[in-house]
C-alpha cells in the first residue's frame, strides 16, 4: 500500500539543498550579484588608476554595495522563497515535514548570499591591502587595519545574512502583501538616520544593525578630518550574529507544533547574549569619538 518514502537522508539536509537551489534560481539574487561584481571591479580599477595624492579611502571600504545588493535584495528574495514554501505546503494540506524544518532549511539557504559576500570580502581585503587608504582617512591611532577590516566584515558580510533572515522572519510572522517593500523602505530610512551624522546617536546607534563606524564627518569649507565613532566593532559583529540567530529562532517559533517551551528558553538566552554584546559594544572599543589628526580634502 503506502509507498515508504526514502528517509535515509535527513530531511533538513535535503530540504536545505533544495532551498539553496531555489535561492540560486532567484533572478533578484543574480541581479544584485552582477551589480556587486561590477561595483567591486570598478572600485579595484578606480583604486589602481588613482594617484596617491587623491586623498581617497580605499575603494574596498564602501560597504553600501554588498549591504544593499545582497542584504536588502536578500530580504526580498528570502521573503519570496518563504511564501513559496508555505504555498507548496498549503497545497499539500498536510505533510510530514513540519514548518520548523522548512524554516530551518530556508535559513540554511542564506549560505548563498553569505558565500557571495565572503567572496566580495576577500576581494575587498585584497583591494584594501594592494591600494591602502591615504593617511588622512582610516586607520589612524589608536586603531589599525584589524579595526577597519572588522568594520568591513560587519557592514559588508553580515547584512548578507541578516537581510535574508529578516525576510524569513517577516514572511513567517507578517505574511501580508506589501510588508516586504515596506520593510525595505523602513530599513533604508532608519539606516540613513542612524548612520552617525547626529552626535546624539553616536553611543547607542550601534543598536541598529547597519550604521557607520567612521567617515569624513568634518564637512567645513572643503577640508576636514575623518572621525571614528565610539564603540567596539568586534563586539558589534557578535551582537549582529546573535541578532541573526535570534531571528531564526523566532521564525522557527512560529510553528505551533514546535517545542515552544524549549524555544522560549533558547530565544531568551540568545536575546540575553545579544543584549550583553550590545552593551559591551557601547562600553568597550573606542571610548570617545576620535578624530584623525591628519587633515585632508573631503572626498
Amino acid at each position: 500500500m503506502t509507498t515508504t518514502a526514502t528517509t535515509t537522508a535527513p530531511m533538513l539536509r535535503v530540504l536545505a539543498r533544495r532551498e539553496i537551489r531555489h535561492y540560486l534560481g532567484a533572478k533578484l539574487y543574480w541581479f544584485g550579484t552582477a551589480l556587486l561584481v561590477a561595483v567591486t571591479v570598478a572600485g579595484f580599477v578606480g583604486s589602481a588608476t588613482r594617484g596617491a595624492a587623491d586623498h581617497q579611502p580605499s575603494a574596498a571600504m564602501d560597504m553600501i554595495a554588498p549591504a544593499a545588493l545582497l542584504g536588502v535584495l536578500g530580504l526580498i528574495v528570502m521573503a519570496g522563497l518563504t511564501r513559496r514554501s508555505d504555498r507548496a505546503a498549503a497545497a499539500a494540506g498536510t505533510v510530514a515535514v513540519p514548518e520548523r524544518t522548512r524554516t530551518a532549511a530556508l535559513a540554511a539557504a542564506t549560505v548563498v548570499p553569505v558565500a557571495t559576500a565572503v567572496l566580495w570580502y576577500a576581494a575587498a581585503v585584497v583591494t584594501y591591502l594592494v591600494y591602502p587608504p591615504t593617511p588622512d582617512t582610516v586607520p589612524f591611532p589608536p586603531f589599525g587595519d584589524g579595526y577597519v577590516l572588522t568594520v568591513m566584515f560587519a557592514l559588508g558580510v553580515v547584512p548578507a545574512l541578516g537581510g535574508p533572515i529578516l525576510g524569513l522572519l517577516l514572511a513567517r510572522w507578517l505574511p501580508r502583501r506589501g510588508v516586504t517593500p515596506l520593510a525595505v523602505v523602513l530599513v533604508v530610512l532608519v539606516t540613513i538616520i542612524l548612520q552617525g551624522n547626529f552626535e546624539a546617536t553616536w553611543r547607542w546607534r550601534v543598536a541598529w544593525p547597519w550604521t557607520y563606524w567612521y567617515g569624513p564627518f568634518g564637512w567645513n569649507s572643503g577640508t576636514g578630518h575623518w572621525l571614528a565613532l565610539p564603540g567596539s566593532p568586534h563586539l558589534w559583529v557578535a551582537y549582529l550574529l546573535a541578532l541573526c540567530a535570534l531571528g531564526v529562532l523566532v521564525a522557527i517559533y512560529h510553528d505551533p507544533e514546535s517545542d515552544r517551551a524549549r524555544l522560549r528558553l533558547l530565544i531568551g538566552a540568545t536575546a540575553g547574549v545579544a543584549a550583553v554584546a550590545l552593551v559591551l559594544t557601547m562600553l568597550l572599543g573606542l571610548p570617545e569619538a576620535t578624530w584623525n589628526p591628519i587633515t585632508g580634502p573631503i572626498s
Partner: protein
Amino acid sequence: MTVTLDNVTKSYGRTVALHPTTIRFDHGVIGLLGPNGAGKTTMLRVLSSALSPSAGTVTVAGHEVTGSHAERTEARRRIGYLPQEVVFPRGMTAFGFLDYIAVLKEWGDTTGRHDEVRRVLALVDLAERATVKVKALSGGQRRRLAIAQALLGDPALLLLDEPTTGLDPEQRASLRGLLSGRPGTVLISTHQTEDVSALCDRVVVLDAGRVCFDGTVPDLLATAAGRVHQGPSANPGAVQTWRTGTGLIRSVGGRPAPDSSAVEPTVEDAYLLLRSATPEGAPA
C-alpha cells in the same frame, strides 16, 4: 487501514462546524455528501491533521492524529490530502512543484523521488506537461496536478475535497478509474452525486455538522424507492421538480400525481429527499 473519529467536535467561535461525531472508515471509497457548510471540508481537514478538533480523538492506522507530535507525523505519513482550494507557489514547473512536495513528504532519495513524481504525473495524464510552469497550465490541469500531489507515495488514506471540480467528463471518468482501483481508504467530499453512485462503496451524508446518513449506495437509493415520479404534471408537495428532455416532469417526493409513474431514483434524488427531511433542508 482504519480511520476513526471518536466524539470529534469542531467549533469556530460560536459556530459549530462539526457536532460530536463518532465514525469509522475502513477500506474502500467513501463519498461525503452534503450542502455547502455541512462540515465536509472541516471533517476532511480534521482527518488530515491540518485542523485540530475542538474535542475528541482522530486515529489513522492506529496513530492518533490528535496525539503527540510523533504520532501525528506517523499519521501524516499515511495521508494524501487534496484541499478544496489550492494556491500554487509561483515560478515552479509541474515537476518542480511535485518534487518539492515529495521532499516535504520525506522523499529524501533523489532518484526514487523523481521516479515517484513521474509516476503520479503519468497517473493524472500530465507527463507531457511536466516541464511547464504551473501558471501556464489550464484550470483542469492544475486540479489534476493538485490531485497528483495527494497521490504521492500511494498513501493508505486519501482525502479528496471536491476533486472533480474543473475536470471535464473524460477527466472525471479517468479519475474514477484511478480511484476505484486503489487499495486503502479513499474519502471524497463532493457535490457530484453521479461520482458517488459510480464510485463509492459507502456514502456519508452530512448536514449542519451532523451525520444524517451512513450506508451503501443501494441503502441510500432504497430510501427514495417509490418516491420519485415522472409524468405530465408535477407531484403536489414535491421537494424538487423539473422538466426533463422528454418533456415529462420529474418529481422528487410529494404525493404522486394521478397520471405519473414511479421511476428508478438516483443518488441525487435520494440525497434531495434526505435533505428535505432535515430542518435545514426542508422546503420553505
